[in-house]
């Protein structure tokens, strides 16, 4: 009985445990972000802090399709991807607080999460600058016969940059296994997409390079998962790059420094009606896959994880001053 209900919701390969885990992950990301925002307001976190609220379905859906040895490279709005990939939550929070135990020892901050053991290769803060890096990673994968798929995440703003086109062209020429995942959240900082991009469909920008593309509803974790599954299979088969445009919306400002004067309240409210977490939760409930007790448990677990992360971070020491001179050069 239950198996067929699950089949109804997402097709084969998705059991109840996996679905609840998606909800768990999305909620964990949301709570981590809300807590980070709070700590920023209290002056405990500094620098730029780009929160991911509203876009959780994208990270959770997309990451769920990656194999263990696949690679991930993202822009600075990287917390969601890091958490979905399983980076240590405590060390991520410690990084935000600039502590020695941080995921990159307090050298990178919010925009530069990185964990090579999980194939999470950043965290890059120059818009579009990491797209060619993804091509190089894909080249290495092909060259070494590793069959690693590279998931490369960026925003709509990045598609207007020369790097974007250089990277897509080279990706196609070299047939690298890169899935370009563009999160179109309708804004690059305060500039609405129609004021920055001559074409409104980012997915069309892959066409000149002969790269197959798809647009997908980014508020639906299962839709993102389904599309990414196809894209990853395409890349894994050796058919070269694939381009996904994930339509989504960020609920908060571009960064914590953003007073958000450029958006209509009504527009924000409208999108909040489509909150990917609420929608998914309701769907699970409707299909009888989520009981109030199970929801309560997910709430409690995610709360605890975030509380523990903050405790860990706050109790962690600052990096020693001798760290300043560390890791400038590798041994020959």
């Amino acid at each position, binding site marked *: 009985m239950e198996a067929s209900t699950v089949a109804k919701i997402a097709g084969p390969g998705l059991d109840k445990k996996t679905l609840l885990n998606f909800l768990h992950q999305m909620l964990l990301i949301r709570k981590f972000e809300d807590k980070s925002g709070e700590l920023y307001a209290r002056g405990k976190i500094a620098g730029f802090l780009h929160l991911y609220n509203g876009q959780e379905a994208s990270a959770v859906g997309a990451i769920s399709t990656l194999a263990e040895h696949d690679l991930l490279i993202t822009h600075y709005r990287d917390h969601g991807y890091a958490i979905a990939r399983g980076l240590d939550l405590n060390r991520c929070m410690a990084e935000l607080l600039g502590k020695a135990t941080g995921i990159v020892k307090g050298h*990178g901050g919010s925009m530069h999460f990185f964990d090579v053991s999980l194939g999470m290769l950043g965290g890059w803060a120059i818009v579009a600058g990491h797209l*060619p*890096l993804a091509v190089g990673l894909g080249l*290495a994968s092909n060259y*070494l016969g590793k069959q690693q798929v590279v998931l490369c995440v960026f925003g709509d703003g990045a598609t207007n940059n020369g790097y974007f086109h250089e*990277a897509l062209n080279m990706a196609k020429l070299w047939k690298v296994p890169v899935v370009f995942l563009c999160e179109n959240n309708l804004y690059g900082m305060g500039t609405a997409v129609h004021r920055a991009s001559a074409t409104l469909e980012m997915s069309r920008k892959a066409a000149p390079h002969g790269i197959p593309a798809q647009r997908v509803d980014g508020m639906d974790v299962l839709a993102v998962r389904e599309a990414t599954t196809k894209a990853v299979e395409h890349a894994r088969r050796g058919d070269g790059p694939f381009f996904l445009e994930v339509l989504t919306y960020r609920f908060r400002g571009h960064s914590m420094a953003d007073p958000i004067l450029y958006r209509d309240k009504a527009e924000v409210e409208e999108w909040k009606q489509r909150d990917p977490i609420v929608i998914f939760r309701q769907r699970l409930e409707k299909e009888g896959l989520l009981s109030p007790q199970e929801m309560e448990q997910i709430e409690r677990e995610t709360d605890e994880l975030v509380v523990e992360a903050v405790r860990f971070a706050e109790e962690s020491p600052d990096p020693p001053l001798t760290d300043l001179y560390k890791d*400038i*050069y590798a041994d*020959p």
Partner: protein
Amino acid sequence: MPIITYREALNHALREEMTRDERVLIFGEDVVAYGGAYGVTSGLVNDFGDKRVMDTPIAEGGIGGAAVGAAMGGLRPVAELMTINFALLASDAIINHAAKVLHMFGGQMSVPVVFRMTGGGGAQLASTHSQSLEVLFAHVPGLKVVTPATPADAKGLLKSAIRDNNPVLFIEHALLYRVRGEVPEGEYLIPLGQAEVKREGKDITLVAYSRMALVALEAADRLSQEGIEAEVVDLKTLRPLDMETVLTSVRKTNRAVTVEETWRTYGIGAEIASRIQEEAFDYLDAPIHRVAGVEVPLPYAKNLEQAAIPDAGRVVEAVKQLFVRTGV
């Protein structure tokens, strides 16, 4: 020892390193059929195939980034950017990314990539194609910058650069490719970050690098005829900078003149002079003089271009002035 050109020496270095390590591959503009804009990669595709010698589009940002990514993915790419002038388009990948990975990501990963490019002027290519922008890159912690002056150095340094686990900018000089010199047979490495006394002398130290090291040597020969014995230090690597060799020499000769092709302001000479002043002030018998490129965009016309780039005559003049001023 066989006498070969600077170009051939570089080609041999690439060949040997590709033979030694499967992870070494070359990509860049026109490196395959054309053999590289300056002929350095000539013939490599025949021996190593098009999986290891790859042409790229004319997209320096893409090349730079792909090289960084390939290094992060486990390869040891040698990316050819044609010239340092075009490296400006790849400077985001080089300065913002390659130089930062090890430190910013908490020491988890280094980037063993070599960016090869031609630098310098003197071929009447006008201002956008004649620049000596090595200072720009030598300014950046996390990068290594190598500037070989002779065929032997070119080979030994390039081999070390490819084996180095850090991002290295390997800057060849446009006018040196046809210069011949003795190159030791068999495999040898020259360590990065070590200057070399290329000529011993007791009266003054000339500090130079790349083609200007040869200019300094020529000047030293001429000075010798006038009774001044100049010691010539070739820096070879601009970052990390080997000040010990420079300081040891200056403590012996008590005088120094720096020679560089690039502009004087904020240049290598400024750095060297300042460090000598900080660490060997008591040894100095005269102020340190800087011979450098004239501070203009390099013009096309032959006479104007020649007037802008230091030559041995200018170095000799600078040295003689120093001795006159200090009354020796």
